[in-house]
């Protein structure tokens, strides 16, 4: 059952920080509440004050940054808003596909991308994908604003670099470069992914020039795996090509070195195997997007 708490409903960022200051720190921000209310219900967290972020205009909306055209997703934008966004569909179709399979439609209607990242659930779909996409989050506090790369932001299971009184105001994802493809695939047997893999490839002159790979639900937090990614560099950008097959085999072998965690979906061995399967599927999807952006 959700314990009793006091509610603050600020209408601006400034009011939000005032609301925080009015508490003795026994407070939490919330927007959709799909994560935080659930853990409160389970008796795992309790706050004297909950500060609702849904009335703050600065946290809403999806836009393209004026300079580099990066995708900027406001801190209180819901999964569903991303799923149906034309901007996101054009700039980062992999995120739309991912969002369409996050939890269920109710959670997507209610829950926010920002909340998902701040909660740092080890099985988070978006965190895994955004890692490979070189995304960053913008954190704002009384003291000012800072941008933190996702791999610096997620510091542990359910732990982030965000200070309790800081707000995640936006998620910023760099635009795709020419010849770049970004894809996310998962194996899922229950509510959460058993294992997930994201990959970002840049193809130049018919070969893979750059690669970034992240894996989720395999180790205790979603992580970038540079040595796995490196296996792809130099391979032909053709799923049927021999060098690609060799690169994939090499990448899969390197996944085998990860310190995987066994869980309800399987032993570490099985999960590493699954990651390899999903990696292959993601790489092929990324190649096809890269070809479209050539």
């Amino acid at each position: 059952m959700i314990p009793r708490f006091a509610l603050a409903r600020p209408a601006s960022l400034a009011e939000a920080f005032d609301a925080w200051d009015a508490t003795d720190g026994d407070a939490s921000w919330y927007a959709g509440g799909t994560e935080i209310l659930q853990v409160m219900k389970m008796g795992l967290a309790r706050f004297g004050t909950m500060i609702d972020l849904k009335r703050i205009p600065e946290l809403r909306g999806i836009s393209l940054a004026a300079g580099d055209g990066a995708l900027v997703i406001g801190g209180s934008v819901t999964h569903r808003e991303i799923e149906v966004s034309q901007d996101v569909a054009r700039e980062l179709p992999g995120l739309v596909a991912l969002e369409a399979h996050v939890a269920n439609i109710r959670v997507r209607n209610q829950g926010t991308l920002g909340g998902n990242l701040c909660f740092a659930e080890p099985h988070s779909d978006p965190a895994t994908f955004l890692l490979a996409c070189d995304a960053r989050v913008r954190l704002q506090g009384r003291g000012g604003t800072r941008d933190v790369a996702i791999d610096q932001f997620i510091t542990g299971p359910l732990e982030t670099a965000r200070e309790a009184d800081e707000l995640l105001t936006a998620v910023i994802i760099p635009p795709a470069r020419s010849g770049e493809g970004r894809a996310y695939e998962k194996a899922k047997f229950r509510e959460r992914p058993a294992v997930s893999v994201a990959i970002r490839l840049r193809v130049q002159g018919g070969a893979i020039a750059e690669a970034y790979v992240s894996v989720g639900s395999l180790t205790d937090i979603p992580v970038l795996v540079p040595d796995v990614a490196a296996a792809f560099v130099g391979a032909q950008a053709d799923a049927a090509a021999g060098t690609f097959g060799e690169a994939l085999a090499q990448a899969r072998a390197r996944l085998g070195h990860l310190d995987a965690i066994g869980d309800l979906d399987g032993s570490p061995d099985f999960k590493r195997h699954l990651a390899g399967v999903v990696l292959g599927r993601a790489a092929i999807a990324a190649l096809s997007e890269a070809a479209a952006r050539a």
Partner: protein
Amino acid sequence: MPETIDITLSVNGLAHELAVQANVTIADLLRLELGLTGAKISCDMQVCGACTVLVDGLAVSGCTYLAVDADGREVATVEGLATDGVLNPLQQAFIDHAAFQCGYCTPGMLMSATALLAENPRPSRAEVIAGIDGNICRCTGYLPIIDAVLQAAEAGAQR
């Protein structure tokens, strides 16, 4: 004990002014305060969908959606689907296809399907499946439900 918060919301078109504790969920407000027991509590973890209600047309899990978050909004529940005792095409399709057995999931299933059809009046079979995949039914094996939603879409298209 924290103070109550004054909220106004409409439920199935009827306006309510209420003073609620912040921790009260919309499902508890509906079931315990307003006597609308259609929305059901089951998994209590936003997974089963038995508590699905619509807030401004969007399906949410009533078990984990705060009543205060519905302040100023329109809430729709299963009790509001029929008009003057006449079932709507979706409700009728559920009866025609025996798309329920125990009926405990039915209010939530109907509301998810309502949201789906509002957004996509002529869904494909795959879209219907995606639309109700977040609602668990333990009795029927789902196929009658999928058929019922498709029938309702067909009926809606013919009107």
